[in-house]
């Protein structure tokens, strides 16, 4: 009688090439659905053949300049995982790891670290000296080089991310709804400063794929094998194709409207505006501290000069200082609070 042979669990690897913007989203959702139903854990790679915008599950569509996207021919889709609105194009290699929820740590933070670790190893093999910083950003120095989001889709967990070969900062900024040209200019400045690989770094997508396969297989204890999409996945993808262009799905869950506006460039880096009591505040925050603040408070020089004094302080400290500057100062502090930035 022969010995029973234990077949090691496998990691299915799907190189899906270049697909339409819609399929750049629905394909990996379909894969995650099937992994939830018992399909092999899967690492997949694809690119979109045209620009599009992907918005995180909970985020308001108000954050996207839908009219501008429409004029540029960039469709907008809502994904089932987290994070904010992002511009995707063919200069980004999109990767996704889908595996049973029971295979990842119960702690969300630990789950993310366990899945981002192999991704970081792949970045380094691709020529991008990335690391995972203490704020869970994949960075080179202080520049974010990988956008990611994660979520549980039925009984599967999926992490999606991108290898940015060339980042189109102008387009990425233009798809966002921004209250005024100055804020848009500031957003672009910080996007250029803090997003994308340094100019002297180039990413090798082929090396990234090979290294990602090895790193994820090693980390998960799985044996990689090339695979294909199943019939069930193709069927599911067609269902999702219809769902993702449905207006109700795109609108997303009911969200409270914020009185202020904010845009996150990377962890700890924000542009925000708010208005209260005839006072308008615009602030840039870097490393969770105010880098620039402009206050429009007609006829009140004290509060405008106070704005200069908050540089280098946290938003909480800045608000406390402004509150000491009379009614306009208190209004400025209120305006900052309206943006709802969750930093000190």
């Amino acid at each position, binding site marked *: 009688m022969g010995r029973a042979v234990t077949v090691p669990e496998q990691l299915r690897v799907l190189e899906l090439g270049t697909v339409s913007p819609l399929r750049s989203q629905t394909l990996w959702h379909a894969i995650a659905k099937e992994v939830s139903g018992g399909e092999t854990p899967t690492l997949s790679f694809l690119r979109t053949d045209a620009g599009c915008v992907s918005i*995180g*599950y*909970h*985020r308001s569509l108000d954050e996207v300049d839908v009219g501008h996207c429409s004029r540029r021919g960039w469709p907008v889709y809502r994904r*089932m*995982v*987290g*994070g904010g609105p992002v511009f995707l194009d063919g200069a980004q290699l999109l990767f996704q790891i889908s595996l049973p929820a029971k295979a990842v*740590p*119960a*702690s*969300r*933070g*630990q*789950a*993310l670290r366990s899945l981002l670790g192999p991704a970081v190893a792949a970045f380094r093999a691709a020529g991008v000296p990335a690391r995972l910083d203490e704020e*869970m950003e994949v960075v080179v120095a202080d520049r974010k080089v990988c956008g*990611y*989001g*994660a*979520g*549980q889709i039925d009984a599967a967990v999926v992490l999606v991310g991108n290898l940015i070969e060339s980042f189109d900062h102008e387009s990425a900024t233009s798809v966002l709804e921004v209250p005024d040209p100055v804020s848009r200019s500031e957003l672009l400045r910080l996007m250029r400063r803090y997003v994308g690989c340094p100019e002297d770094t180039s990413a090798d997508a082929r090396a990234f794929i090979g290294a990602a396969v090895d790193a994820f297989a090693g980390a998960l204890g799985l044996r990689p094998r090339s695979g294909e999409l199943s019939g069930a996945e193709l069927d599911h993808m067609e269902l999702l194709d219809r769902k993702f262009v449905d207006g109700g799905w795109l609108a997303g*869950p*009911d*969200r*409270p409207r914020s009185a202020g506006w904010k845009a996150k460039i990377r962890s700890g880096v924000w542009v925000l505006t708010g208005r209260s009591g005839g006072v308008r505040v615009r602030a840039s925050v870097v490393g969770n501290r105010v880098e620039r603040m402009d206050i429009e408070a007609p006829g009140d020089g004290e509060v405008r000069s106070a704005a200069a004094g908050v540089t280098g302080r946290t938003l909480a400290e800045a608000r406390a200082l402004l509150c000491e500057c009379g009614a306009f100062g208190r209004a400025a502090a209120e305006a900052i609070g309206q943006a709802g930035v*969750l930093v000190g």
Partner: protein
Amino acid sequence: MERSQWAKVGGYRMRTDLAYDSEGHMWVERLGGGRVRVGLDPLGLEINGTLAQLAMIPVGTEVQRGEPLGSLEAEKFVGPLRAPLSGVVAATNDTVVENPGLVEQDPFGCWLVELEVLPGSVEDAELVEGPSVPGWFAEQVQEYRDKGVLAE
């Protein structure tokens, strides 16, 4: 009005007069007349991390135990909030949807959803409640610590 009963278990301040769903780490408060309030317990909060977003399904929606009552997002990670009981959503707490940080400050003071429990539902039996709550919670904490999910 009955006063809440509290105990410190495994380093967490717990209400011992509530029922708990062990899988989703949701607390359940019986309001009478087949209506319950549901919220996240402290262990559920710690596992999820800093809450950035919450969304609830609409009032009037019927859910079965284990189905999503809504969703939460922490660390760019979206996950479901599982119904501890089958029922119809009678109310949602819009204050915490607008400011999820409130739940972290006071998990027992911030309910998420009220449910009208479906008649004939027998799922109550699967909730942990009464004198067994502290022991069950202590075991859960230890299990997560053993797995390295929680700090010592």
